[in-house]
């Protein structure tokens, strides 16, 4: 297990203290609720999609620092992007978090790579992924998602949090 100092970097701590895009946008076209029943992380995510582009996005809820910072940076990253690009980021982030992202291949994660260290903290992987699960669910008109749901297309067994 790695030292968490690699994970609790200033950028993550800052997004935890001052989350960006906090609060749900009015006239949202897509929304979803994400829960991790094992640790109690719980977020609501809403976005407005126009011309297949994420025009507005916001979240709120009650969660640990990793989850909140991940949600904050995620919303900042996908705002203004095309839906397909957002979905691609979801996949890349998930692969990075569980350690299957090929570092040799090009990706679009940019500053989101501060979360790479989470792959060495198996009980915290789900905290980082939950907002991305929830975004995927919202984009696919799934009202709620759980890190423990077998039916969830993002579900990946990774040990209990």
């Amino acid at each position, binding site marked *: 297990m790695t030292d*968490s100092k690699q994970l609790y970097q200033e950028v993550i701590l800052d997004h935890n203290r001052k989350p960006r895009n906090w609060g749900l946008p009015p006239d949202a076209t897509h929304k979803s609720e994400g829960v991790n029943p094992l640790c109690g992380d719980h977020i609501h995510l809403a976005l407005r999609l126009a011309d297949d582009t994420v025009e507005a996005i916001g979240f709120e809820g009650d969660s640990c*620092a990793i989850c909140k910072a991940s949600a904050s940076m995620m919303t900042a990253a996908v705002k203004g992007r095309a839906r397909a690009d957002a979905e691609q980021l979801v996949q890349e982030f998930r692969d990075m978090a569980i350690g299957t992202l090929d570092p040799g291949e090009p990706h679009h994660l940019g500053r989101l790579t501060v979360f790479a260290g989470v792959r060495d903290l198996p009980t*915290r992987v789900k905290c980082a992924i939950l907002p991305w699960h929830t975004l995927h669910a919202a984009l696919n008109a799934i009202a709620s998602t759980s890190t423990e749901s077998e039916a969830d297309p993002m579900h990946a067994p990774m040990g209990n*949090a």
Partner: protein
Amino acid sequence: MSASLTARIEQHAAAFDVGRVRADFPILKLRVNGKPLVFLDNAASSQMPQPVIDRWVRYQTSQHANIHRAVHYLSETATAEYEAARRKVQAFINAREEREVLFTSGTTEGINLVMHGYGRKFIGAGDEIILTTLEHHSNIVPWQMLAEEKGARLRVVPVNDRGELLLDEYRKLFTSHTRFVAVTHVSNALGTITPVREMIAVAHEHGVPILVDGAQAAPHLEVDVQELDCDFYAFSGHKMCGPTGIGILYGKAAWLEQMQPFKGGGDMILSVTFEKTTYNVIPHKFEAGTPPIAAAITLGAAVDYLQSVGMERIAAHETDLLDYATDQVNRLPGVRIIGTAEQKAAVLSFAVDGVHPHDVGTVLNDDGVAIRTGHHCAQPVMQRFKVAATSRASFAFYNTMEEVDALVAAIRRVQKVFT
């Protein structure tokens, strides 16, 4: 720290050599993230001392065969050691007879055995089962399953803001429909020691049998099932320096004889034909199949070990640890202790303002400090105290005051990281 607490701790330190005890536990020499391991997750599972580890090895090295079966030397040896372990546990909890001591896989199985063996036979539609807010999920879910199946109803004893059960409310829950009570002896989430003696007496005034979940009590308090007069008492080996996969269910012989078996199979029968099976006598009626023989015998060695240290001295040292930790954590601004009962075992649940327990646990781990974070399989307790989760430090007799200091220093570091 008050002068009286300091004096008490110094006096106990002279009588109890924690350094000598620690030398028995090889795992306590580990370093985690470059720091000495500070293991404060004993309510989840305790560590095993060398004499107990050695007992497992000796069994597998020179005594193993299946029990209650063959006439050869090893089978007879294993059977004798297995039954000797049962007698050790019998003496440990002061059960009247050894046949009242059943080997199970753990507390959860013990409770499920009573739910199936007693509940399914004697509890029906419209009947009521009394539980408490403090229960671990393992003492809720089996009764809920039974209630659903039979059309029975659960009644729940509430707690006050300190995490103490309200005895008056408990008394009021009894009706002519009450058929069973299941209560924890020590809350795993808060540390509250419940007034089981009074609760057992009240249940018996109403002619109702009562099960006590002793998972958190057996390793820390002297338990005398005859003095308590409980009908059932369940606990686990791995929380009392024994191995996982073994536990004990004590039951009064009169109940066990009337109950239906939980599992069918070998060893629990006297005779089998395709027309009819005659069940074996207790305790064997409830021990179908090859039991975890090595684990049972090793649990016997864990009982020997705890008794060699002395349950009274264990309780005294753990009380010192709890009082010292409570005093120190109370001095930290922004940290709130959840569960402040007058009577507590060495469990300290706390919340750090503005920091999620999982972040607390992860940062503490950097300093080698192992605690549990989450809902502790006691979600009704979390709901009662309006938190999603807590951080929980739980102490054993091999912990030290210096480890409490390490915990407090690590909590300070958490606050520094997140402000």
